[in-house]
């Protein structure tokens, strides 16, 4: 009896073990070792007529449904093509494990600048498909090419052409002008005008201070990216901006850079002093609330802030205002940084050609119309004129004299322990709390820049 019991126990334990170990091979091992055999694909063999395109997209404020509509349109226009979509708020976690074992989506809509840095990792690892030929593709159902339709400049940035070889690897998707947001109602009420130069800005800051209002607030230091890029364009023009973005030696000691640093450091002194305490993911809306409550005048932000704060209480007579950065001198250029999302194709995608067709379709009037319905605006010529309401005001910023700044710090091979954005933008908190001086800040930026220069792509 004992023996039988023993055998039965052993058998059941071994069975459970077998069941568990079966799972480990497939998914839950934290990282694949070189020796593990690739996962057997469970896909059914495809007949030549039906092709499957795998789309992975980050679910943003625009929602997941919009992609379903786009997919339906694409499938209708391309009989025999089926689009399998994965749309998720944490898309990196969903598609990550499969990618480690070599199973890649064909097309990924995920912008740079996300905390998990998936897109950056692909850029740094040279794992992207060249999409330059998409530009010369004819848009399905239309006569023009993709290049004809995209607003000039969007496919010449350090983001879309990360290796500086004239080739486009990431295609620009939804864009949004960024700049300074304020309560237009407050300025009207007080009889203040929107400053057009930084000198006027400081004068306004002093006036506001007398009324107990701070000049400046920022949601988190991360929002300084668009601010800083636009400012660099103002102080030194696009050429200087490009030099800075490529970590050119000595660039941070140049008079232009010093002027930019001076402005930010001075602005830190005019910043509402509770801002660093709330400058995190949990509480950043409190910093935005300062504008709505008339406790601060300006904040750097993007057009999404209107939706983000739509349910927040606000001061009487509140009206959103939006302006480009003030010029550094009378009559100087004013810039507004253009933030845009990207769509790209992994180098190891199985259906890269189909993915390219899909991307070309995204620039069709049909697709753009679907996106525009949820407020997602693509960089397509004349798109801005079709907008309504607040968006019309925001997207017309470039028609009102502001120049567009685009691009970001150039891609490098990963340099362990060095993050240029943490160094440049993150330190602003310390400037406000006076934990660090401007000299320390510039020194740290120079050090990070030196480290990254050697790793440039």
């Amino acid at each position, binding site marked *: 009896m004992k*023996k039988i019991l*023993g055998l039965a*126990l*052993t058998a059941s*334990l*071994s069975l*459970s*073990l077998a069941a*568990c*170990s079966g799972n*480990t091979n497939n998914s839950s*091992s*934290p*990282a*694949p*070792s070189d020796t593990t055999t690739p996962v057997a694909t469970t896909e059914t063999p495809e007949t030549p007529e039906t092709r499957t395109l795998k789309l992975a997209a980050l679910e943003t404020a625009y929602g997941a449904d919009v992609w379903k509509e786009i997919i339906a349109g694409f499938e209708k226009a391309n009989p025999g093509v089926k689009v399998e979509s994965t749309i998720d708020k944490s898309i*990196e976690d969903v598609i*990550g494990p499969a*990618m*480690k*074992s*070599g199973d890649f989506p064909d097309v990924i809509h995920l912008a740079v600048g996300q*905390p*998990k*840095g*998936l897109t*950056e*990792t*692909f850029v*740094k*690892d040279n*794992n992207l498909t060249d999409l330059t030929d998409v530009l010369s593709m004819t848009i399905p159902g239309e006569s023009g090419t993709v290049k004809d339709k995209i607003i000039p400049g969007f496919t010449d940035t350090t983001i879309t052409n990360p290796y500086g070889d004239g080739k486009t690897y990431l295609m620009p998707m939804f864009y949004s002008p960024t700049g300074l947001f304020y309560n237009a109602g407050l300025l009207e009420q007080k009889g203040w005008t929107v400053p057009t130069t930084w000198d006027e800005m400081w004068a306004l800051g002093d006036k506001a201070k007398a009324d107990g209002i701070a000049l400046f607030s920022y949601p*988190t*230091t991360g929002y300084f990216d668009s601010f800083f890029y636009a400012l660099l364009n103002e102080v030194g023009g696009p050429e200087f901006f490009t030099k800075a973005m490529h970590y050119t030696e000595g660039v941070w000691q140049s008079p232009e850079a010093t002027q930019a640093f001076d402005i930010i450091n001075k602005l830190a002194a005019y910043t509402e*002093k*509770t*801002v*660093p*305490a*709330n*400058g*995190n*993911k*949990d*509480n950043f809306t*409190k910093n935005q609330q300062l504008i709505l409550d008339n406790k601060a005048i300006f904040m750097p932000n993007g057009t999404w802030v209107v939706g983000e704060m739509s349910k927040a209480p606000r001061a009487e007579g509140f009206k959103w205002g939006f302006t480009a950065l003030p010029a550094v001198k009378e009559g100087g250029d004013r810039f507004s940084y253009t933030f845009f999302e990207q769509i790209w194709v992994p180098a*190891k995608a199985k259906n890269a050609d189909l993915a390219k067709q899909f991307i070309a379709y995204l620039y069709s009037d049909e697709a753009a119309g679907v996106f525009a319905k949820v407020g997602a605006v693509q960089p397509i010529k004349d798109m801005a004129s079709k907008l309504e309401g607040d968006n019309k005001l925001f997207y017309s910023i470039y028609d009102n004299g502001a120049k567009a700044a685009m691009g970001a710090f150039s891609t490098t091979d*990963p*340099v*362990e*322990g*060095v*993050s240029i954005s*943490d160094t440049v933008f993150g*330190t*602003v*908190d310390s400037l406000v*709390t006076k*934990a*660090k001086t401007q000299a320390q800040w510039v020194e740290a930026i120079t050090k990070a820049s030196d480290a990254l220069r050697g790793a440039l792509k």
Partner: protein
Amino acid sequence: MDIKKGQGRFIFFCLAPAVILFIVFLIIPTIDVFRMSTYKWGGYTDDKTFVGLQNFTKLFHSDKFYQSFQNSLLLIIVVTIVTFAFALVFASMLSREKLKGQDLLRIIFYIPNILSVVVISAIFSAIYDPNSGLLNAFLNLFRGATSDSTLWLGDQKIVIFSLAGAMIWQAIGYYMVMYMASMANIPESLYESAELEGAGRMHQFFTITIPLIWTNIRTTLTFFVISTINMSFLFVVAMTGGGPDGATEVFLSYMYKEAYTNSSYGYGMAIGVIVFLFSFALAAILNAVTKREHLEY
């Protein structure tokens, strides 16, 4: 003889599943962390280059790593000492004194432990709010409302202690219940005889209670180290994001930032290795210095 052999085989087969599971899920992943720390790897694809111990050399030259090390160490020390002291005192009060609503108090103390870290972070973000927060409002009673509000989560010198405050609040209940459990085992007669001989409450606490729950205290010290390292990551992510300007960056938040945001997975794993060795070493040291002769009762 045959019976012994059979028994041995039986034990072997009974143990095998557990041992295999242990190896597959614990030993191999741990070794994998060590192995991956020697690669330069983005983490998302299968392209990686072997770089030997380079990741470690870089780590030891990184100011940011030392900053996160310092913060973690500070949290471990502060959270352990304060939580330990409070938990012990509360446990002793609840198990030795006759208080009204003892059971209710025990539940209240334990509640923070069942709340999610995100909820606790939200509660403490509200408490620490510079303008409308409870803490500043309370302090203003003494220092006057006109004085500058303290930035509990904005001042680099204070923020790490603010974080520790939330962690301590969360942990006390758990350790208190653990200490209470072992205090309940101490025979009442010891206290009675001590009282007859004129020993006061404090004296009893230090000469009877503490020595007799010493084994339990030693175990919890190891728990303190491990849980502070883990929980600090959750609190940092939910409350400060490592800010302002890296002032609350701890081991694991720095590791996460490097492994994912900075596309340096191998380097992140190197940090993981250091954390692993550090927590092991610290636990071992704590165990060694708290070694006492086991008291029987």
